[in-house]
């Protein structure tokens, strides 16, 4: 029980830090840190959505970055075509992500294990090349979003602080949803399938439709991250869908702790801060990042959350 306390305390500390960050940025005049953390919060949202299928559902999707692109392109393309309202852009981004997830999921879930990993990867790479071929929308070079989503006075996305809080609210909202889902009838079925699919079928649950629904929910959540990311960078390009980005998301989830509520957030914060910090010191930052990740994964089963739990138990 004490171990539970330590990871809870660290999580609370991290959340308090995230909430108070704009204040610190304002007082210290450090604008860069707010920009950095906006990106961290958005990618934490993407990692949390991946955790829903990876951690709770044991579906190792290696193509989750596709939704970042789909959400982003929905915003970018609509903006270019003169539809600037966020009330249209965001729902379209979510709907497009859900539709993509439904098709990809229905096809991918016919496979298991390594094949599932490879097929989700393949579909994401297809999405990447489709985006590269969109000559009208920048092709390889990407698409600049000249004006951020317009929420008609409700919230101004061009204001750094307001935008940061919007992203943070989305992250916390998604985590709240995942928490409810995990304990719901649906969530128990999905976790039961992770544990023993044969037994769940024998009890009377058709596995695939639950897994597909979970896959679609996860993809939709990640589409939201994509829409936010395009607003954050004022730019969307095929690169956000590249397989290395999908890998980054997986690393964040595993690093933080699969199947834990706040693990992916922790993973995203640690991973992206390390990347930022190490890349300032040396050009060869990846050389240090690799072994560091290896150590955590090797000695910290269950990621940072698992490690904190054990530290607490002594």
């Amino acid at each position, binding site marked *: 029980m004490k171990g539970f306390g330590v990871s809870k305390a660290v999580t609370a500390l991290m959340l308090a830090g995230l909430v108070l960050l704009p204040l610190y940025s304002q007082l210290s005049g450090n604008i860069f840190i707010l920009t950095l953390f906006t990106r961290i919060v958005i990618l934490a949202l993407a990692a949390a959505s991946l955790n829903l299928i990876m951690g709770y559902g044991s579906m190792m999707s290696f193509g989750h970055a596709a939704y970042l692109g789909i959400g982003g392109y929905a915003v970018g393309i609509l903006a270019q075509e003169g539809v600037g309202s966020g009330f249209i852009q965001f729902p379209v981004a979510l709907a497009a992500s859900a539709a993509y997830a439904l098709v990809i999921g229905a096809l991918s879930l016919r496979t298991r294990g390594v094949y599932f990993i490879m097929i989700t990867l393949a579909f994401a790479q297809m999405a990447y090349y489709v985006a590269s071929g969109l000559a009208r929308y920048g092709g390889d070079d990407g698409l600049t979003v000249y004006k951020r989503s317009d929420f008609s006075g409700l919230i101004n996305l061009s204001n750094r602080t307001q935008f940061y809080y919007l992203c943070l609210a989305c992250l916390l909202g998604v985590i709240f949803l995942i928490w*409810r*889902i995990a*304990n*719901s*009838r*649906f*969530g*128990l*079925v999905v*976790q*039961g399938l992770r*544990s*023993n699919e*044969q*037994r*769940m*079928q*024998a*009890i*009377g*649950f*058709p596995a695939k439709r*639950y897994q597909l*629904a979970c896959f679609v*929910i996860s993809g939709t959540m990640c589409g939201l991250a994509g829409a936010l990311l395009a607003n954050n960078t004022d730019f969307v390009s095929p690169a956000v869908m590249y397989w290395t980005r999908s890998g980054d998301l997986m690393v964040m989830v595993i690093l933080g702790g699969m199947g834990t509520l706040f693990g992916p957030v922790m993973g995203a914060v640690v991973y992206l801060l390390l990347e930022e910090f190490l890349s300032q010191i040396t050009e060869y930052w990846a050389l240090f990042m690799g072994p560091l990740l290896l150590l955590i994964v090797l000695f910290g089963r269950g990621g940072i959350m698992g490690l904190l739990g054990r530290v607490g138990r002594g």
Partner: protein
Amino acid sequence: MAEPLLRVEKLVRRFGGITATDNVSLDVASGELHAIIGPNGAGKTTLIAQLTGHLEPHSGSVSLGGRDITYLPAYRRCALGLARSFQITSLLLDFTAADNVALAAQAHAGTSFRFFANARKEKALRDAARAALDRVGLLHRADVVVSRLSHGERRELELAVALASKPKLLLLDEPMAGLGVTESQRMVKLLQELRKDVSIVLVEHDMPAVFALADRISVLVYGRVIASGDPAAIRQNEEVKRAYLGDQHVVTHHG
């Protein structure tokens, strides 16, 4: 005679050149405990797999309560009232005993596409789980994670899970497998209780248990039913004695 609860007709299943299920026909009447015995390799597991929907037969049919279920997937058969236990214990190891049973109850109580309300606080499901655990004598272990239960307790939990789906027919695949003497005796007692409420197909190696429990016994050898009848008739059957040659005493001395 009324329509039997389970009717298997001329079931055939081959693996390459081997006919693992060779023209098997058998009926299980409502309220009956029907045991299926046979030496190792007789095709009992193959037969069970076709009854539960894990394996498709090459020909023949299986019907439950008059309805053809030969090609229905496992989860649909379960909805129609067919529950099973596994020869090798198959449970959700990282869930508590109560969660395992409650999920089985949940599968038969409305849709599971509910995303928001806490399922562990649904009183009807929890009560059903506790009732089923109580019947198998596991109520005091309700909140223990399955991976920490003993083998004997897991076998009992398998039964509770099967019961929670309120089945018409229970398919028990070697429920005594791996149990010690006292545990086996408890299991026999438990099955004696259960058979009052539910029809049972019992596949079992433990001959004393089979002869103590069964209304009827079908003997499977090389995929064929060589005899079917009440325990006394099976004990006298010459062909059965021959099939069990070497451990003949198994059939003649117990019961």
